[in-house]
């Protein structure tokens, strides 16, 4: 039943442990660098500014959601409604752009998202229901609202004052990429340099300790959901302005992709630890895999499969590393 091992020499273990810790800490970055190098050799068209910026541009909406979702997950929550909020923001922005004002439409997306996220937060803290259940339910409600707004139809939005957000460039760099970078920096600042960030870590790490330190834990949680909703709204607006079409079904499954990216980056699903850069790395890793498949002309059916396997391996490695502590 129980095997008896002999103790082995401990010498290389310390080295192995620190290499293991490094790999656990920066695993995503290591894989990204490996992919960058590998794909550069595999194809001449890969390692060009144009292609790399294109990858960033295409993954900007997902990355924006993942950045804010990181705060929710560090705070011990879970948000399954970002895809649906993305949909509501998309159609509302389209509606506003056509019927009211294109600039107001750009603002409307994030604001509506923020409100919907706030509703999530209020239900979660008000009734003490787990965020997983609440956002699962509200995602259905929000998706329903998105369909009701357009009656299920698509809204074409061809207005230059609106579509610059998703289409224009400043120099070589897409506006969407700049928005992503600014948003990422904002989230990093919030998480690492403000009292709010400290509270998020504390609430996710030990809610009772946070409460007994005088932190208004419910308020902190509501704010993280506001941020997550707002980010989903912003992402929705960018997507609509890019394809000039608002559709209520937009962003289906995006919430799972965002969660996958956050976990892949190494933020703990248990809350209390993690980082924004990790989630962006997770997004980039997923995007690089997709790009690699395109460039190498591999059957795209394998793309999801590969991504899934990588997530499982990454999470399993992180779990085994933390267990051996």
């Amino acid at each position: 039943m129980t095997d008896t091992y002999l103790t082995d020499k401990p010498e290389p273990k310390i080295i192995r442990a620190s290499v293991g810790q490094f790999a656990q800490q920066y695993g995503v970055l290591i894989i990204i660098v490996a992919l960058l190098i590998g794909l550069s050799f595999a194809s001449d068209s890969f390692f060009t500014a144009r292609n790399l910026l294109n990858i960033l541009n295409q993954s900007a909406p997902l990355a924006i959601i993942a950045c804010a979702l990181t705060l929710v997950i560090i705070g011990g929550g879970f948000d399954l409604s970002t895809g649906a909020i993305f949909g509501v923001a998309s159609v509302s922005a389209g509606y506003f752009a056509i019927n009211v004002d294109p600039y107001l439409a750009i603002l409307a997306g994030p604001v509506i998202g923020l409100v919907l996220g706030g509703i999530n937060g209020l239900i979660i803290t008000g009734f003490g229901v787990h965020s997983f259940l609440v956002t699962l339910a509200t995602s259905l409600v929000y998706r329903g609202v998105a369909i009701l707004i357009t009656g299920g139809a698509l809204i074409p939005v061809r207005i230059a004052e609106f579509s610059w957000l998703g289409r224009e460039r400043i120099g070589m760099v897409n506006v969407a990429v700049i928005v992503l970078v600014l948003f990422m920096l904002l989230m990093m600042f919030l998480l690492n340099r403000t009292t709010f960030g400290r509270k998020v870590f504390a609430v996710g790490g030990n809610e009772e300790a946070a409460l007994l330190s005088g932190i208004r834990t419910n308020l902190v949680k509501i704010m993280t959901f506001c941020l997550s909703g707002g980010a989903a709204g912003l992402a929705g607006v960018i997507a609509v302005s890019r394809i000039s079409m608002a559709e209520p079904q937009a962003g289906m499954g995006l919430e799972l992709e965002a969660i996958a990216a956050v976990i892949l980056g190494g933020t703990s699903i248990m809350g209390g630890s993690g980082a924004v850069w990790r989630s962006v790395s997770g997004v980039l890793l997923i995007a690089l895999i997709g790009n690699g498949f395109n460039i190498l002309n591999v059957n795209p059916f394998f793309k999801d499969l590969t991504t899934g396997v990588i997530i499982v391996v990454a999470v399993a490695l992180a779990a085994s590393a933390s267990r051996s502590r």
Partner: protein
Amino acid sequence: MNGCSKIPISKPNGRADSTVWTGPLWCGPVDSMAGADMTDTEIAVRMNGVAKSFGKTRILNDISIDFLQGSVHALVGENGAGKSSVGKIIGGYYAADEGTVDINGETVSRFSPRDALQRGVAMIHQELQLVPDLTVLQNVFLGLESQYGGILVQGDVARFRALEETCQFGLDPHAKVARLRIAERQKVEIMRAVAREARIIIMDEPTSSLTEDEAERLHALIARLKARGKTIIYVSHFLDHIIANCDRVTVMRDGQVIRNDSMAGETKQSLVDSMLGQASEISWPTLPDAPAAAVPPLVELKDVHSDTGLDGVSLTIRPGEIVGLIGLVGSGRTEIGRVLFGADRITSGAYLLDGQLQGRLTISKAVQQGLALVPEDRRKQGLVLTQTTRPNVSLASLDKISRYGVLDQRSERARVKRMIDHFGIVPGRVDGDVAFYSGGNQQKVLLSKWAVDKPRLLILDEPSRGVDIGARQRIHEFIVEMAEAGTAILLISSEIEEVINLSHRGYLMSEGRIFFEASCADLNVDEALNRIFHEQGADPSSPERIIA
């Protein structure tokens, strides 16, 4: 007290005994190697040259200890000396980096707690490991439920009663563990180990959350287990308990064994000297003078009731005064602290702070008013273990180190560094990994959280539980320092001696009520205990009724 002494418990009934394997009997699992040299002093566990490191920190070095079968073997040492780690290696929680561990004559290494259990080793943790949503009964028999082909059948209740005859804890088998207090959860853990017929039981600070009376019954149980040939490894800071109940002792310091000895002839002082490496006195600090009677109280409770069981509590605490609450676990000590801190709501009565009636005091308002609470369970309620020292220390005073919500990290570091120096926290890194600190240093981090800004009221719930002697003395000095600086202090501790020696005034509690108030200079431990037992309407020799 009265003359009726405790009656030793006769052998449990046959039903319980039929499944008991009492050590080296022929009916036990056949051991291929054993059998040749079966002597009275068989070695249950032998550690030989064991070393263990975490990262670059070496926590155990060349540990060699023989634990004799059927003995109660104490491990003592300051926190961080490595005694819990020794327990965890035997219990299968840590793998030794070097050296060998023999259990019942067989060398094992890299084995899991599950393997350890199969070899008859059970560990009772400082951090208890129970399933909170299950009942006492379900937890005790978790994994060994009465079953037939995987389908649960009746019979666990009877088994529980049989077990209860050995343990005599007076627990309700159908109570949910989540609703039990720490002391009771600990009893569940112990019953669980007994139910598993463990031959080697490691107890890490088993009495730290028990009252004296409960501790006594635990020791009676240990004596019964020992009589059945079980080996008990007893890790504790309570030297009195160790001297009274253990046969052998291993003193540890800085991850090394200082000496392995028989307990005969040991005194508290001889153990402390070995632990600290130099002679030092066990002493209580001198209290500052109590504030004059004319000083108006900082906080006052008048006939307070609460849903948590407070039943007409009235008390006052003045600035600079240390007030102690004395009572058994469950008497409402913690609940008074929580009401004062705004953590629990008052259903009737009045709470005055600075003479002002407090309607709906919330914790965040209480903190803004300068109230502070150090909770009894530092890992569950006090520290954010996913974070380092710095954010833990700053957690309650973020407003003081920020402007418009943006942190001033430089002043934060300076503040945290100041607290690390003040308390002598080791390791002294501002961003040290608190999760791996010893109990004493974790407690110091927790105290720093409030000490960094002088609070007006400091509520300390079990401030020295599970803490080594050095840290304990530092914490005691700290309490006195704070009182000298004018902080009102409410001291809650299961250790009556601690409360009496560190408080100006003491309130005796029972069943959510304060029934007696006295100057602590006029009070001694025996008298306090007598009064409590008397108040409960039970006499000290039949304590079952008190705890139930």
